[in-house]
């Protein structure tokens, strides 16, 4: 698949001659493409004279960055302390079972990506699952079923 790098070019222009820009720059690029495509890494390197090794160093260090395309919906399952105590691991296993993928992977139809995160700061409603930007608290297996179905049908509508 070819990537249209013109967006990335525009973003890079905004960051020229500023310091400490690599992380926000990559965040902006990821916001457009959903991940950090290989082509943009080359572009950043050339335009801003940053070694690719430094760019990959940053993208692999921080869990936020992806080097592969992500699913349409991202499911984040909290594995923080409170969620662990309240059964977050079971929730992760259950979703992973239902979608047939492990955390860090994307379903073949590109519909869902599954991620584990450590605490989303809503421990009072543990266990917590976040789909895209929506928080769902006090999860249990029934709720998961309902949630997944909801997002599946959402896709069909659009």
């Amino acid at each position, binding site marked *: 698949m070819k990537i249209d790098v013109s967006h990335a070019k525009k973003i890079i222009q905004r960051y020229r001659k500023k310091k400490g820009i690599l992380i926000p720059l990559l965040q902006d690029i990821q916001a457009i493409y959903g991940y950090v495509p290989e082509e943009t890494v080359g572009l950043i390197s050339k335009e801003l004279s940053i070694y690719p090794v430094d760019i990959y160093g940053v993208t692999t*260090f921080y*869990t936020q960055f992806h080097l592969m395309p992500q699913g349409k919906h991202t499911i984040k399952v909290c594995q923080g*302390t*409170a969620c662990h*105590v309240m059964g977050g691991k079971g929730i992760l296993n259950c979703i992973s079972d239902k979608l047939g993928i492990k955390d860090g992977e994307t379903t073949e139809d590109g519909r869902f990506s599954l991620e584990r995160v*450590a*605490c989303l700061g809503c421990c009072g409603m543990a266990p917590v699952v976040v789909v895209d930007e929506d*928080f769902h*608290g006090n999860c249990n297996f029934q709720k998961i079923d309902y949630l997944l179905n909801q997002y599946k049908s959402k896709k069909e509508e659009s």
Partner: protein
Amino acid sequence: MKARILICMGTSGISAGAEEVAKCFKKELNKYNLQSKYEIIRVGDRGLFRDVLVDIIEPNEERITYERVKVIDVPKIVKNHLKNGEYIKGLQAGKDYKQFFARQMRIVLSNCGEIDPENIEEYIEKDGYEAAKKALKMKPEEIIEEIKKSGLRGRGGAGFPTGLKWEFCRKAKSDTKYIICNADEGDPGAFMDRSILEGDPHSVVEGMIIGAYAIGANEGYIYCRAEYPLAVKRLDKAIGQAREKKFLGKNIFGSRFSFDLVIKEGAGAFVCGEETALIASIEGKRGTPNPRPPYPAQKGLWGKPSNINNVETLANIRHIIDKGADWFSSIGYNKSKGTKVFAIAGKVKNTGLVEVPMGTTIREIVYGSGGGMVNKKIPFKAVQLGGPSGGCLPESLFDTPIDYESINETGAIMGSGGMVIMDQRTCMVDIARFFLSFTVAESCGKCIPCRIGLKRMLEVLEQISEGNGKEEHLKFLKDMSQTIIDTALCGLGNTAPNPVLTTIRYFKDEYQAHIKDRSCPSHVCTNLVRFEINEDKCIKCGQCFTVCPTGAIDLKKREYPILNKEKCIKCKACIDVCPVMAIE
């Protein structure tokens, strides 16, 4: 004055449908032509998780709080209460709500859940920015002296006196200095900083203005974690409004002091909460810590003197300048002054944020505000303090007062204020394993003790929880812990063994049960659970039957459930739901 309808809109409120409730209120008010009489105000989280909380405040009348409000309740509230003046008894916040707030002393959280965080006027009405105004008329040294006298200590974990920290940075000679707010709250199980940023962002901005003036910085950064999008949004708005009012920018309050703020979003790395790693991350590099000295106060961001403070520390500043150091130091216990916000979560009835004076005991928090355990039949086992750097304490230490020194003595740490309550269904070996797998995943890999030592410890803990533990493992864990504590580069490694050490210290018999009897007393470690139903304990409630996702549990009327091992996928849903721990 208009009467006010407060609707709690933190991340948790929104997930429970607060936005829909607010919209419905608007519609219903219009329907009865009440929109000129009532004002809907979207406030931050008040601290208690009760789905959507709605407060009705009418002039000269008692304040009424409704909890767990759903959209379908709104027409009733508007019609019966607002129009006809009849309260709706069934929805009114009950005993738990009162108990939760009764023992608290709200200073830092005083505005959370009371004002609209996106409207600077409301903050100003609560004496906002008065402290900054006052501070800018003082000499920087006077401010530092005042903060030193107040006895305020850093709320980010280590408890270093804030006044001293500022003084070091003040004395460092440089043309440029920076003040940084650490809002990277990575400790899983803690959410104090998020609620402050979402509920009262201006108090942090004001604290930073005062701090910047005191140390002589003209630029500030707020390093906020990316998992908190709402906090970032509200901070951004707050900074914009403060700029418009000229509280930020050039010549603040007509003085010669100029200061501005930038938000930096983190990208998901726990170690970036550590000061030197945080600086590296702001500079756009991999967030790996550097050896100290030089301390950030001498050589920090871009090599310039920098001062890093936690969100809660900064939110305290305005109150100290406003009400004076003597007032602040009159609250508290021993060498710990003021209040501390704790995030209580886990198996207690009331989960949320509590702010109590230092010196309050753990018991008062868990049984007082927390309201005791969720399930009365399954008793308390441990409380986890301080996240991955802290430890688990048993009930015998419940009367320990909350202050930095007393908590350190127990082997845990105060940390940032996460407090997770665990009952008998939580396995301590599993918790130790859990924290180590967290620190192993988050270790930046720069120093060997942390990168490899923790990994070896995790492997041993995994063996124990799988039933392959050996007697000598305990000694290995203790020795390795000591080596890591002594040699790791940064605070992450130095404190990572704490959860293991405290669980061995206070819950040794559980380790012994795993190693000697090959059994997990809490039925958590999957390999050691037989998945059999103990008919002596079973009360035939049928919950296991309902919850089983594969239909492996068979239930006939008036008989004990039967578990079909061939269908069982060992998901432990039945164990989690069983009210009497009958599945072994």
